């Protein structure tokens, strides 16, 4: 059985939103939170911003999409007017950041949210990104956000849409930290596996549906049901791929569900999208299963195809070091076949000088 732990950890480094970019996302959230909390109107409504989405759950992959922020209004419920809440948020934000298209402004209205651009000025922190802030009011134990159709904001029914986003973040964290949930070494494995699944999806489905969130739902479901076990990344990922393939195979008769709301995912997947996902993940699960029986280099070659690449690394999973030789050339490594070690490394422990 191959020993791929180090390679998977480096692959995770390559796909995670880490370091400066994650810090900037958190800082941006903090900046907006502090700005909004200073406004009397919003304060009276009990504003309590929260980082949600894959950034909030720490399941996003590089380069990452918008940073989603829930502007929770703890003293409002669905009796509040979406327009009034939305306009109050927009007023404060546009005053601070200006409107896009007007003298370098950075704020922009979306269907039900306000987007603020955060440019990467010194181009050293993973590029530009934006914060998408959406107002949310209480609905029972959950939260509700305005419907995307602003024409319906005046109606009594349907102007707020219930969302389990906040609760899903809490459940994800619980699952990750659970003592009965698999670990690799000392590291909790659930969230890293979600990232590897999202990366795999990105490689093999790209812009096609299902998107990353639905794959995360399916992964969550499998892990919460304790269908995946193991103590190595490759074993856990293989088991997860198998569960995903099985879940899509029966999704035609048993629709995917939102794990919080326990309702079919909305918008639903088409039959063609479900079949394609079942086929692709079925093949990937089979390839992963084969890789478990290979030597390190051959297994790495297989996993490189499964995980694919991103802007930082293509593929994201590095080859393992070889004994007594160099790991081939770029040409060999970028092809489908495994590269063999060539040549010998000569190290000279000479006292080398500056150039």
């Amino acid at each position, binding site marked *: 059985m191959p020993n791929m732990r180090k390679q998977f950890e480096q692959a995770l480094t390559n796909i995670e939103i880490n370091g400066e970019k994650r810090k900037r996302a958190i800082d941006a959230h903090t900046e907006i939170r502090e700005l909004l909390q200073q406004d009397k109107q919003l304060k009276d409504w009990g504003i309590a911003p929260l980082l949600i989405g894959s950034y909030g759950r720490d399941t996003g992959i590089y380069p990452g999409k918008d940073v989603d922020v829930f502007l929770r209004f703890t003293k409002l419920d669905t009796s509040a007017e979406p327009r009034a809440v939305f306009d109050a948020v927009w007023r404060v934000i546009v005053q601070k950041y200006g409107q896009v298209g007007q003298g370098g402004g950075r704020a922009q209205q979306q269907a039900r949210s306000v987007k603020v651009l955060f440019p990467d000025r010194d181009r*050293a922190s993973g590029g530009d990104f934006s914060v998408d802030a959406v107002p949310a009011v209480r609905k029972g134990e959950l939260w509700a956000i305005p419907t995307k159709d602003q024409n319906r904001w005046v109606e009594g029914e349907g102007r707020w849409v219930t969302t389990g986003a906040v609760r899903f973040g809490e459940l994800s964290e619980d699952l990750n930290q659970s003592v009965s949930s698999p670990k690799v070494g000392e590291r909790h494995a659930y969230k890293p596996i979600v990232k590897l699944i999202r990366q795999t999806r990105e490689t093999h489905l790209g812009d096609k549906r299902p998107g990353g969130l639905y794959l995360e739902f399916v992964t969550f479901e499998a892990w919460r049901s304790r269908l995946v076990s193991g103590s190595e990344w490759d074993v856990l990922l293989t088991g997860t791929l198998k569960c995903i393939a099985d879940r899509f195979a029966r999704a035609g008769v048993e629709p995917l569900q939102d794990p919080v709301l326990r309702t079919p995912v909305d918008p639903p997947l088409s039959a063609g999208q479900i079949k394609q996902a079942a086929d692709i993940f079925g093949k990937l699960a089979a390839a992963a299963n084969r890789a478990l029986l290979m030597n390190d280099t051959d297994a790495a070659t297989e996993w490189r195809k499964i995980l694919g690449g991103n*802007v930082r690394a293509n593929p994201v999973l590095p*080859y393992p070091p070889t004994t007594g030789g160099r790991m081939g050339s770029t040409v060999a490594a970028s092809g489908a076949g495994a590269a063999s070690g060539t040549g010998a490394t000569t190290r000279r422990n000479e006292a*080398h000088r*500056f*150039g």
Partner: protein
Amino acid sequence: MEQESFDIASLERFRADLVASGFEPVPSTERRVWRGPIHPAFDGLTDARTMEIVFDPGWPYRPPRVYVQGLNTNHSTLNGFVCLWREGDASLQWETVGGLFDRIEDWCERARNGWQEDDLPFDAYLNFKKKWPLMATFDFESLLTSIGSWGDMNGVLANPNLLSLRPGPATGPRDLRGLWFRVGQLLAPPPRNLSELPQHLKRSQRKGLEKALSRRRSTGGPQTLGGVDVILFAWQRRERTDLLILALAGTGDDMDAAALVAEPNDERTLRLRAGPDADLLGGRRVVLFGVGALGGHVALTLAESGIEHLRIVDSDLLSPGNVVRHVAGHDQVGGRKASAVQSVIRDHAPWTEVDSIATSVNPGGRQEIAQLVEDVDVVIDASGNDAFVYPVAQVAEELGTASRLWCAASRWFHWPGSAEGTGIRRSN
């Protein structure tokens, strides 16, 4: 397209470690250029917040290039290149991010506390913003002994690749006009462009330079434009003298300078390459009979090793067929081999005084032989003539002036005072 690498696995590991250190690939560079937070070791050396790491094809045998803006120290260039390893370094210390960062820490410590002297000789040239692949030769001895701190010099383009500089003002219409400046220790890193040069000069030097620069009239390469075309700037660094040779192009605001590859050509400097025995051989005299295919190489090697006086004896003419194995080339064909070898030696080892005798020596002429061998330390026979070696050996031994006789071509040698007692023996 991923760039070419000899070890894709270690390159991928290195880049993954870069990501873990907060670096990201710069868009549209195919992961060739990475930007990330500046290493804390640079604190105080620059205000920059980021640094770049550039990969060239050939990993891991070529180190990644590191760029940090705002540095003003040796071993860094105006465009921010940080010279971490000398050209050709094969340590592979850079193969891990940890190794690279260790080197950066070492570099920064030296940037603060001083560099090793051995690291610096070529630094000024390498760090100059523009470089011109043209070699400039000059007489280092005369520069060191020149009176004053600045003066005229002139140069000629000896060939398209070589500018030969000499002391004194330009005289011919095609001569390049030059100025040399000499100062003491520099208080700042050597100039990295033309505008940084004046700050290292004394007032009188600076005025002289400004005046000469203002006289330049038109644009072009290293050609005479009036005023000054070439500048030699020398400074003292502890026990040695470092220098930059700059070729000027353009005039007025468009004026710019490029560093040339500076190489001294004075005898003292050249002799440093003669090898460890040069001083020992410096006072020795050698006579060599026969400077053909073998003897010519023997003569040249002796001269290159530092022999001070070489007498070469050969009356043969150099033919085209000889050239195949001879030290002299086809341009010498038709002349005497002795003269040809003398010419080659003058070109390679100017410190060797060559006494070229292009007449045939009569093996029976004891007196004639005696005159040739009496004042030398070593007698070498490369004539390939067995009948000649005996009388030479005998005369040399009788005179007691030659300690050894080598008969290179015929595998005979004479070893006076050996236990066997015979004057000449066949070698094994």
